[in-house]
């Protein structure tokens, strides 16, 4: 197994996993299309398969990367099919390391990945401390505000922490700081992406359905901001307060909840997957549902096939045996950004990698149809936001006509004048 559950506090036991090459993966997964193809080819083959010669002239460079995963407990009311995969984000990072090592072979560069996971922040901090005694490298974080605070407090100088899981806008507006980057889109980027699409469709009267859960409230606040920003109007708000399992009752209850004279679309903000899925097709008026359910703004979606993405989807499916999700993509991006910076700057020092990523020279191809760069005013990776329904890609924001003096990608999320942090402070 190469997913490590390194709960052991002893640094000697915190194993470093060097991600396998694809040939290894295929061997591991048994018969695959490629192997069949290969056998046929071998039968036909007169010559021999050639191995690549790495350029031994270039000095070798190893970049150790750690991914820190806080495994939050999931509410037991979540539909079984919607539970988070155990290897969420970790598989994305592993694929990123595998992709980067293929490039690294030709440049004598090697990337390693250590997976640190726990449901306890203290335990994670201890394991990170142990890892850092032996390694100096970038850390990818997937977890709560508390996890990010702990990692930042603990690891103050010469650091590079890439957030691939936390969407809170606080980290992009007030608490952004030097050495902290984000590859996962912020909540504001997501709601802005949807709001632009709504303007384009002229679905500008929104009925907002939320609950009193703090995270739902945060998402709802983000939609309120985006509505204002792009000229949409919230015509009504409903609070979801059902505590019973509605499985057989949704057809009766949801129309009553969404009863209103007029709205173009229902915006739902269900962070924990508790009720959002009851809304489509059950609303009082025959209207689409969007937000956390229905039409959703996402970092990534399995239905994306444009811009050469089929190759990435295929690689991930073969590697992980499931579809690529938001946090897998954000973790893959984090590793690819690290590798790109290491390849171009020929450095493995976290602070030098950070400087390169924040410079004008950095750009990343990431299957979204255009190059991605970091916002140097808050460390957020600029990226188009796909809008997807469960089975297909519907659109991708920024929508045409939303202009910005620098790049239309900065019409999504908090822009420079709204950000209050000094990135040069370590």
């Amino acid at each position, binding site marked *: 197994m190469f997913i490590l559950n390194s709960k052991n506090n002893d640094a000697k036991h915190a194993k470093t996993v060097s991600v396998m090459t694809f040939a290894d993966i295929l061997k591991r997964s048994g018969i695959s299309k490629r192997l069949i*193809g290969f056998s046929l*080819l071998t039968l036909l083959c007169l*010559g021999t398969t*050639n191995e690549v010669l790495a350029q031994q002239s270039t000095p070798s460079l190893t970049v150790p990367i750690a991914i820190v995963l806080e495994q939050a407990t999931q509410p037991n009311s979540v539909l079984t099919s919607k539970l988070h995969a155990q290897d969420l984000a970790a598989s994305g990072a592993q694929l990123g390391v595998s992709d980067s090592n*293929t*490039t690294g072979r030709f440049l004598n560069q090697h990337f390693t990945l250590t997976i640190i996971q726990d449901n306890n922040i203290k335990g994670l901090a201890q394991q990170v401390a142990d890892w850092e005694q032996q390694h100096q490298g970038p850390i990818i974080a997937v977890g709560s505000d508390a996890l990010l605070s702990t990692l930042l407090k603990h690891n103050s100088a010469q650091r590079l922490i890439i957030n691939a899981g936390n969407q809170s806008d606080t980290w992009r507006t007030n608490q952004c700081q030097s050495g902290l980057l984000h590859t996962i889109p912020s909540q504001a980027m997501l709601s802005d992406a949807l709001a632009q699409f709504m303007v384009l469709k002229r679905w500008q009267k929104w009925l907002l359905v939320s609950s009193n859960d703090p995270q739902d409230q945060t998402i709802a606040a983000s939609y309120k901001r985006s509505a204002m920003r792009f000229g949409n109007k919230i015509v009504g708000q409903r609070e979801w307060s059902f505590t019973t399992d509605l499985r057989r009752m949704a057809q009766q209850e949801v129309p009553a909840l969404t009863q209103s004279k007029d709205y173009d679309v229902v915006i739902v903000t269900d962070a924990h997957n508790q009720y959002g899925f009851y809304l489509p097709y059950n609303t009082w008026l025959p209207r689409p549902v969007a937000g956390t359910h229905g039409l959703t703004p996402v970092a990534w979606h399995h239905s994306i096939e444009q811009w050469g993405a089929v*190759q990435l989807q295929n690689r991930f499916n073969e590697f992980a045996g499931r579809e690529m999700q938001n946090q897998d993509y954000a973790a893959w991006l984090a590793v690819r950004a690290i590798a790109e910076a290491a390849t171009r700057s020929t450095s493995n020092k976290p602070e030098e990698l950070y400087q390169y990523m924040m410079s004008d020279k950095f750009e990343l191809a990431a299957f979204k149809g*255009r*190059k991605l760069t970091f916002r140097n005013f808050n460390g957020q990776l600029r990226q188009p936001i796909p809008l997807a329904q469960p089975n297909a890609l519907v659109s991708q924001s920024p929508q045409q006509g939303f202009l910005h003096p620098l790049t*239309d990608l900065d019409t999504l999320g908090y822009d420079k004048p709204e950000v209050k942090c000094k990135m040069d402070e370590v």
Partner: protein
Amino acid sequence: MKNFLLLSLLLINVAPTFAETAYVSNEKDDTISIIDLDKLEVVETIEVGMRPRGIIFNKDYSHLYICASESDAVQVLEVASNRIIHNLPSGEDPEQFALHKNDRHLYIANEDDAIVTVVDTKLRTVLAQIDVGVEPEGMAISPDGKWAINTTETTNMLHWIDTSSFQLVDNTLVDQRPRHVEFTRDGKQLWASSEIGGTVTVVDVESRNILNTIRFQVKGVHKDRVQPVGIKLTDDGKYAFVALGPSNHVAVVDAQSFEVLDYLLVGRRVWQLAFAKDQSLLLTTNGVSGDVSVIDVNKLDVIKTIRVGRYPWGIAVKP
């Protein structure tokens, strides 16, 4: 007399096939459109394998090789009969390829597998498989036949393969997502497009050093949408034409000074290019609008648009 009549009838029937033609692969239709270059219209559409992309002719134009990506095959079309006569062992997901000047060795980029497969087209056997970076795409063979160059889209490299040993001997790092490579006629320079980087890199073949990086700026189009893919260089060394993808323009570059001279508006999402009529015409495949634009090379002007199938991708011209 009877024989003479028969002969004349035959000649009349055969005559149209002597017109210069362009073959265009339609990625989403699984077809190839044949354009008569005198009439500038589609005269025939042939059904081929799934997701046809790169296409090239052999030396005497008797066969057309077709990368049928989703059929995992390189198909061989007999030009005289317009029929697929057999498949070559290609490796998985062939996307682009190049034919060695020996008219036998086909170098195929296998996009899903991170390998380049070399196939002997006569014996229909695999000669070698060479490990390259992630998502191999563009292929070109130097005019002297010494080098096979492959681009890898996620690794961002040009891989230099020695065709005498089938060994990878060097790599050149270029901008994001290199798509296409093209040698100058004298073999001294290698031009490579980087789709997401938005640049074309010109490499000196002898030293393998980068000579120049060309950038583009299309008026009214955001620079992120300027995405170079196909490249064609005129034999007289005067021009380089670069297809700029979703910016819907073809750039005209001075091949000596590397200066961009002009941008020509063509169809939507322009990808591949081919010369016709002794390089007096340049044809472009426009994926999204489903057509081919015809550019007059002397006037640097678009003179016609020809509707073909859905998502035209590759293009090859038979004189």
